[in-house]
């Protein structure tokens, strides 16, 4: 099997408290909060960082080259390499993977990756609509909600998944979020009835089947083997990073499942030596934009057979108390700062591996999976472990 040139580890983590509005800070100030936390966590000075990888969707805040603004004003990018990676919903995982290659290639020893979104200063849906083809898609199937509703409808029709099973995902994730001090929507007492009686947004999606829009930033510091030893005795090592993309038009294939998640996770499992994900992994932080999608994604990732996502949750396997907790942080249904959302998955997976999850910690985590979802049904998978792979 091919091994990377260098092993790469997460050695510092920072995230802001995610809220719907951060009126108290401007964009660079908000970015700085997460960056400072990550630097303090790794006990590094800004000058010790070799390069900065940034993730943000520039249309959403209306700032072109936002990395050249916030990489200098909100992060220590002055006279350093600053590069932006932007791939929509997967932005956070794409930049996490870009940071990995920056270090694994031997070009840099320590890099800072930072993603953010400050949506009240722009408009996410306005931005997302322009992602779709102006002639074929924009009049009918633009934005995030339309395609996600279509997917949920096709998924439930194919496998007989009920709205009640979907509502259980929201109940699980938002009550998990109550244990996560950074989470946006913390609802310890949320009920299935509450979710199922909320406003219909786009059939079958109700208000509480859908993720919120959050403001906030997340920053991670990566290092190679040698630097990691100097920084911490409790890093989280990358075992696999995989990306799988899809047709320009998502509707070119049936949308009841997520083939890219199946392909990307299979490749990642092979690299990381994982045969049975539910047994060999200890926890997963997945990118579920809607309650229905978590059920469907758990199938695509091989946590259960196709059509059994509802059963998996009914049996309590993915609950905090279950055999294989999914989204102890509360997931995307609780917190969704778009440019950072998938990076938060990686951060939370690293937190679990490091055993620093406090009230949301899953006991004895050796390996964790993080997932990014976005674009035209793209998936990115990262697997982290307590020990380096080799």
């Amino acid at each position, binding site marked *: 099997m091919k091994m990377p040139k260098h092993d790469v580890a997460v050695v510092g983590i920072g995230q802001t408290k995610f809220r719907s509005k951060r009126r108290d800070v401007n964009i660079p100030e908000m970015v700085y909060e997460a960056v400072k936390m990550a630097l303090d966590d790794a006990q590094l000075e800004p000058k010790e960082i070799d390069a900065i990888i940034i993730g943000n969707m520039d249309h959403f805040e209306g*700032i*072109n080259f936002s990395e*050249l603004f916030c990489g200098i*004003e909100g992060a220590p990018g*002055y006279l*350093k390499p600053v590069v932006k990676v932007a791939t929509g919903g997967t932005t956070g995982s794409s930049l996490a993977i870009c940071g990995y290659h920056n270090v694994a290639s031997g070009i840099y020893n320590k890099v800072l990756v930072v993603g953010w979104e400050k949506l009240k*200063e722009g408009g996410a849906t306005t931005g997302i609509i322009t992602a779709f083809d102006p002639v074929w898609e924009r009049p009918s199937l633009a934005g995030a909600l339309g395609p996600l509703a279509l997917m949920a409808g096709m998924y439930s029709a194919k496998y007989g998944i009920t709205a009640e099973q979907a509502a259980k995902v929201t109940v699980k994730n938002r009550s998990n979020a109550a244990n996560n001090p950074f989470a946006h929507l913390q609802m310890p007492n949320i009920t299935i009835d509450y979710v199922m009686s909320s406003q219909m947004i786009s059939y079958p999606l109700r208000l509480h089947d859908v993720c919120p829009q959050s403001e906030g930033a997340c920053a991670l510091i990566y290092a190679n083997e040698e630097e990691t030893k100097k920084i911490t005795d409790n890093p989280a090592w990358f075992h696999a990073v995989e990306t799988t993309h899809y047709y*320009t038009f998502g509707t070119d294939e049936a949308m009841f499942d997520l083939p890219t998640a199946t392909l990307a996770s299979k490749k990642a499992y092979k690299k990381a030596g994982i045969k049975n994900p539910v047994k060999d992994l200890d926890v997963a932080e997945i990118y579920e934009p809607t309650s229905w999608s978590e059920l469907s994604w758990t199938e695509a990732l091989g946590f259960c057979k196709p059509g059994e996502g509802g059963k998996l949750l009914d049996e309590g396997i993915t609950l905090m108390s279950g055999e294989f907790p999914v989204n102890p942080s509360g997931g995307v249904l609780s917190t969704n700062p778009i440019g950072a959302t998938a990076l938060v998955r990686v951060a939370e997976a690293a937190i679990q591996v490091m055993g620093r999850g406090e009230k949301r910690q899953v006991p004895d985590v050796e390996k964790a999976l993080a997932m990014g979802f976005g674009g035209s049904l793209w998936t990115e998978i990262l697997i982290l472990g307590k020990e380096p792979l080799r």
Partner: protein
Amino acid sequence: MDKVGIVGCTQTKYEADKIDQTYSELVFEVVKKLHNELGITNDDIGCVITSSNDFNDGRTIANMAIQDAVGSVRKAESRVSGDGAFAYIYGAMRILSESFDTVMVVSHCKCSEVNQYLVNNSIFDPYYQRHLGLDQISSAGLMANMYMNKYGVTEEQAAMIVVKNRRNALNNPYAHLQERITIKDVINSKIMAYPLKELDFPPFSDGAVAMLLAKEDIAKRMTDTPVWLKGYGNCTDAYYLGHRNMTDLVGLELAAKQAYKMASITDPIKEIDVCEVSENFSTHELMIYEALGLCAPGEGGKFIEGGETEMNGSIPVNPSGGVLSSNPIMANGLIRVAEIALQLKGKADKRQVPNAKTGLAYGMNGICSQGNCVLIFGGE
């Protein structure tokens, strides 16, 4: 450092308004051409790195629209939001990390579909500077004025850059503006932002560029003339123009120093045979000479007068005609890399610099050289 080789590269003709092609069709044109030229199929490509900008494409997640065109269906693609030179180095990193054997790097820009002044105005911070109306033209005027004032560089010296690059473009079949112009034409053209005139600036172009990178053994198997990455430097200058030294390109100077160090170059003018640089206005190229160490600070004007950077000089700069002749903005850096690859392969036809062995490509992000990527390549 392990070796990463450029196997082949393809470009579209750069034009003002390719109204008959969408940007994904532009991308498909260069990808298909690359497949045909190298005799490969989509299965020979490990993954794809693209470079584009959502503002320039008028589309969020602009790379979503080119998944079919780059063949990344059920395959890995990632997008550097910015200049193509930065996408090149990300592609090279994916080979150096030993994750992929081959990487295709693609960049496109269709300037004709968007108002470039608004796009560039959006680079300025939304709180204090954007409503002043700053864009790439007005900020270039500020920089040129300060630079020319400090070092006594003349408008004639600046115009010589435009004359040289547009003349070089006559030899480049892909170039957008191919014309013989005089210093007088430049100086008499309409004033845009004092002291810069219309002809001191590039046109806006539509076009795309693609290249295939491979690790050493595969590159050698696929081509007799692989082009190897020898040096890389990357450095970002301050964001606010008022925080910068506007008379010298500090970020580029540091990026060049890093790249020279990695490539073990101590005397660039002797050791480099050809340069392709992203010059966004006439005096910018003079400042680039200085930052790259081809001449002393403030000597850029005298340097162009000496003719060293002409096609028959000791270090030709922009044999392709540079950005002043073809300007599909986000693709500029990757075009520089592609043109250097052609030079080192000895396949640059009429624009070939004889015996070119070592070449430098410079790509830039943002306003007035804020983000700088310097790449050194070797042909042996």
